[in-house]
């Protein structure tokens, strides 16, 4: 896994495919409102794109894009986004995770603010799922103890 295995066909196909996979992952997260999908599914697709990068190139190339430390930070950031949106609702005299209150800072009516709040927490969930998948994969795939 750590030595570079050069295969022109695989690397070229993956280099072309990975951006589209990531765009599709973002689409699944953002389009969870009106089609099957959401944070969990889109996050898994995004994480799989990084794993494909590691399989087609090597783990160094993947760590250059998303390092181990940054992956852990992102996994915490997603939970913080989710809980932070809940606390924000608390600040505007609402219940915890009562997104309707966010209409005071968003240019939409309370009903639209609920939709926006749902999008916000889906993004948080997506970031966490992606980062946790990448973190677990890095730890499973690295050579023991050598690449800390």
């Amino acid at each position, binding site marked *: 896994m750590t030595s570079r295995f050069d295969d022109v066909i695989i690397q070229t196909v993956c280099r072309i495919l990975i951006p589209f996979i990531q765009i599709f992952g973002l689409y699944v997260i953002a389009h969870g*409102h009106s089609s099957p999908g959401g944070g969990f599914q889109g996050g898994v697709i995004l994480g799989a794109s990084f794993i494909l990068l590691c399989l087609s190139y090597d783990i160094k190339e993947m760590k250059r894009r998303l390092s181990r430390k940054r992956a852990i930070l992102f996994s915490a950031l997603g*939970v913080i986004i*989710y809980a932070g949106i809940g606390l924000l609702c608390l600040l505007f005299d609402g219940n915890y*995770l009562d997104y309707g209150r966010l209409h005071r800072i968003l240019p939409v009516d309370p*009903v639209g603010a609920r*939709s926006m709040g749902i999008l916000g*927490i*889906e993004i948080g969930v997506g970031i966490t799922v992606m980062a*946790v998948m990448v973190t677990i994969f890095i730890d499973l795939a690295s050579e*023991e103890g050598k690449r800390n």
Partner: protein
Amino acid sequence: MKLIALIAVSLTGAILIYGTADMPDWGDPGSAASLHVSPRYIEKSVEETSVPNIVTSVLADYRGYDTLGETTVIFTAGIACILLIRRFKR
């Protein structure tokens, strides 16, 4: 000691099985969940959240606290994997 454990497990299992006898049938239209919660979600979700996908509105809005817990579980699983698998420098 093993005998006590076996008796305790059997007793707990028997109580749980006895408890399921009171549960409503699968898909029973007269059960409490079908009478109050489901119709409310189906009728009001677009009106209250402007999200056409009822699954998303239930997952992220009505049961948002549950989903926060799920996300935290995934985060905790990731941390646990790091602690178990990673080799730290001594």
